[in-house]
């Protein structure tokens, strides 16, 4: 591809790309996002290439590795177009059969299709699978149809049309107005209106000469992509960056034009190897063809982008900490104001948005603000990508319209809780979000409703918990995460979290004292109002939201030394029900501590002094006996007497 020097040339090249493509030509899309790679997608892709060559159909069938499809639970995912036949959990050894049957004989291989557990029927098309059917995949959808390393693929789905429109048909102010009118709010956590943020950066004046103008010696405004996704379990930013880097870069370039920035940075976690690789390749490609660099599309816009790898500190997702980290300093938040829009990277006016926010921009510009704003609720427009993880049947990334009931995400898309367990709560918004109980399941998910329920949108993590999860322990876990990830600068966060973690740990160990809950509330109020940055300000949420909805669990732990979920090891004892024990010897042999007393025809008893509550006996006791159970907060029943422990088996007793 030669340099694209005008919108006319862009359209000419697009027409060429499309002319060379037959939409009816069969092709195989193998997901090679990080999730599917981990389950062996690379070998599946290679197997397809080999099998297709072997069948001699490589001239008529295309193969492509795509970005993440989202249904990561069932990877590697393979979709065969144009019929959209979706095969799940494909292994390399399945591939020759798939090629022979589906591509040559045009027959569907039933056994690799999705099996709907409700209807008991197989589902052929990817979009008919219940996991996808309830989604609205505006931002994330193209991931499954394009090869993230191919600019031609991105052009084929209308890529860079939005940039051309912004550069040649809109003034920067009009672009900002459009983003404002769309009602787009920052997807990184705080939900600040993106257009307003852009407007502040546009109005900001560059200090003459700049304070210090960075390694590049450049001055002028800066735009930054925040891809320092740090929430445990969240990976939507990674999947977008890996699967559709051109879209993020197009959004960023539109933002640079609107704000008047000459330089862009992509701050991406070091651990996101594939994202770094794909976005780096995309950058070089765009520079080659003149969609980045000097005189973008012949518009006169000069815009360069650099990739910066973060070292994996959660707090660097906070924008002021991110900027200091970009400058090569320790990633510690600083007080705002001044906001980055006024004084950001090296003192230059800077606009930072999250990956998903940037990725939404091209669509807003090409389809118009009204189309975007037509989706969602009064205060939250468009769609949001969530990563649905935890005790959920269908783990994966889901994109849904704002305002969808939480229940629909968990039960329709997520397929409910596995193992016949009951839903207990869903943690939203990452470690500093909150837990939402069953009574709030009809809540319509958007920025304001989640905040009202004592949680937050955050970057869109949804961790589902079942009845075996102890909410006190959940709070302890997230607070522990934050004690590690706090930068340690301000006292309410560093010292407050240290004490909160100590108190929660001792409560889960059954050592809770009078006044502990009051201390936790006091430290929460302090962190919330007095911390320097949002990490500290939201850090008490895991405690506050679980305390709000599950106070009785806290009280049971502190007052009765009882864990209602039977999860806190120190508060749980294992006992064998003498009425159900058949003296089968299994638990006795498996107990790593030798803590089970018993023998042939002799009912087993757990010697509590030796038991470490590891739970092995419960795991190994055959379900048909179900003799081992957990108890908490009640005394261990006295063991049966030696006479009562003898099992007299009828058969053997009858034998002569």
């Amino acid at each position, binding site marked *: 591809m030669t340099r694209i020097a005008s919108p006319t040339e862009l359209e000419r090249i697009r027409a060429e790309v499309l002319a060379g493509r037959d939409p009816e030509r069969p092709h195989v899309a193998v997901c090679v996002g990080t999730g599917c790679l981990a389950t062996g997608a690379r070998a599946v892709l290679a197997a397809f290439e080999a099998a297709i060559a072997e069948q001699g159909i490589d001239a008529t069938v295309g193969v492509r590795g795509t970005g993440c499809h989202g249904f990561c639970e069932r990877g590697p995912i393979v979709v065969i177009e144009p019929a959209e036949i979706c095969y799940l959990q494909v292994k390399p050894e399945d591939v020759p059969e798939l090629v022979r049957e589906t591509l040559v004989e045009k027959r569907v291989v039933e056994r690799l299709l999705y099996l709907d557990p409700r209807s008991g029927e197989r589902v052929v098309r990817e979009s008919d699978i219940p996991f996808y059917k309830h989604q609205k995949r505006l931002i994330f959808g193209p991931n499954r149809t394009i090869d993230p390393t191919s600019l031609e693929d991105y052009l084929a789905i209308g890529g860079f049309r939005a940039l051309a429109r912004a550069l040649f048909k809109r003034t920067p102010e009009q672009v900002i107005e459009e983003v404002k009118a769309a009602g787009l709010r920052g997807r990184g956590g705080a939900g600040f209106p993106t257009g307003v943020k852009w407007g502040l950066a546009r109005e900001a004046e560059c200090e003459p000469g700049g304070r210090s103008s960075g390694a590049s010696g450049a001055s002028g405004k800066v735009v930054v992509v925040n891809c320092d996704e740090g929430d445990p379990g969240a990976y939507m930013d990674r999947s977008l960056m890996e699967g559709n880097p051109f879209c993020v870069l197009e959004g960023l370039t539109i933002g640079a034009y609107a704000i008047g920035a000459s330089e862009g940075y992509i701050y991406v976690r070091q651990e996101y190897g594939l994202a770094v690789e794909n976005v780096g390749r995309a950058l070089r490609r765009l520079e080659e063809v003149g969609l980045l660099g000097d005189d973008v599309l012949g518009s006169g816009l000069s815009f360069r982008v650099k990739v910066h790898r973060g070292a994996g500190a959660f707090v660097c997702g906070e924008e002021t900490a991110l900027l200091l980290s970009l400058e090569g300093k320790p990633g510690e938040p600083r007080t705002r104001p001044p906001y980055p829009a006024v004084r950001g990277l090296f003192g230059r006016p800077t606009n930072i948005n999250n990956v998903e926010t940037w990725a939404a921009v091209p669509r807003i510009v090409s389809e118009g603000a009204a189309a975007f704003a037509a989706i969602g609720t009064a205060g939250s427009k468009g769609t949001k990508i969530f990563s649905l993880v935890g005790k959920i049947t269908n783990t994966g990334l889901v994109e849904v319209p704002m305002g969808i009931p939480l229940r629909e995400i968990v039960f329709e898309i997520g397929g409910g809780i596995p193992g016949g367990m009951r839903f207990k709560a869903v943690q939203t918004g990452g470690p500093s979000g909150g837990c939402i109980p069953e009574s709030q399941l009809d809540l319509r998910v958007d920025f304001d409703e989640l905040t009202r329920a004592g949680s937050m949108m955050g970057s869109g993590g949804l961790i589902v918990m079942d009845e075996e999860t102890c909410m006190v322990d959940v709070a302890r876990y997230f607070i522990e995460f934050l004690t590690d990830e*706090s930068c*340690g600068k301000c006292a309410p966060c*560093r010292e407050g979290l240290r004490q909160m973690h100590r108190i929660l740990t001792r409560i889960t160990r059954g050592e809770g004292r009078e006044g502990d809950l009051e201390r936790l509330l006091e430290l929460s109020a302090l962190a919330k109002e007095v911390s320097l940055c949002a990490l500290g300000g939201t850090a008490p949420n895991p405690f506050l939201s679980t305390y709000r909805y599950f106070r009785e669990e806290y009280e049971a732990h502190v007052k009765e030394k009882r864990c209602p979920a039977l999860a806190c090891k120190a508060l749980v004892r294992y006992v064998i029900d003498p009425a159900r024990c058949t003296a089968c010897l299994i638990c006795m042999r498996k107990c790593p501590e030798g803590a089970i007393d018993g023998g042939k025809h002799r009912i087993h008893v757990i010697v509590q002094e030796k038991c470490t509550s590891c739970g092995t006996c419960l795991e190994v006791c055959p379900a048909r006996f179900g003799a081992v159970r957990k108890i908490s907060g009640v005394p261990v029943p006295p063991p049966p007497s030696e006479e009562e422990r003898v099992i007299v088996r009828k058969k053997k007793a009858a034998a002569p």
Partner: protein
Amino acid sequence: MSEIQLEIDGRAVRVEEGTTILAAARKLGIAIPTLCDHDGLEPYGACRLCIVEVDSGGPASRRSRVAASCVAPAEAGAVVRTRTEKLDRFRRTLLELELARAPDSPRLQELAREHGARRDHFDGDASFCIHCGLCVRYCAEVKQLHAVGFIDRGIRKEISFLPEIAGRECEACKECFPLCPTSYLQAAYVLMRSFVVPSRMK
């Protein structure tokens, strides 16, 4: 620079734009307790003892918030309160948290007496450093030597001397020693000294 007027604890004060609330209060002779503030250093905003309640913004967007006065700029028309029941409660908790770390610091004990902070309200976990950063910032900003710095983050964050620099520079300086509100800095220094080659200490 233009002058702006605001109200602190019911008294009006005029200051230059860009002045911090802490400086404006001091102009009125109102004392706000601090641990990490120092005249010769950039404001840091870490100890949060200097919190004040601020009502600011126009009539339509009037809002009240808690802000660290050492880093919060004075705003025209703002109404600031330096002592309220809420602030006193927060200050007391902050002091109690720091007392768990450095129970014998005379400066903390003095502030604890003023604010009714209890020494054993939280579990003791003495490290003696309260992370005010005075030594680190003094060495970086005034001496420009960076002989002492912070290492690690979160609850594991501590100060540490860099033997390569400290072994060369500190013996003749020690200007940070009197700034430390606890005895930790000197202890860390002695520890560092034991690691460096004795001849370099001369």
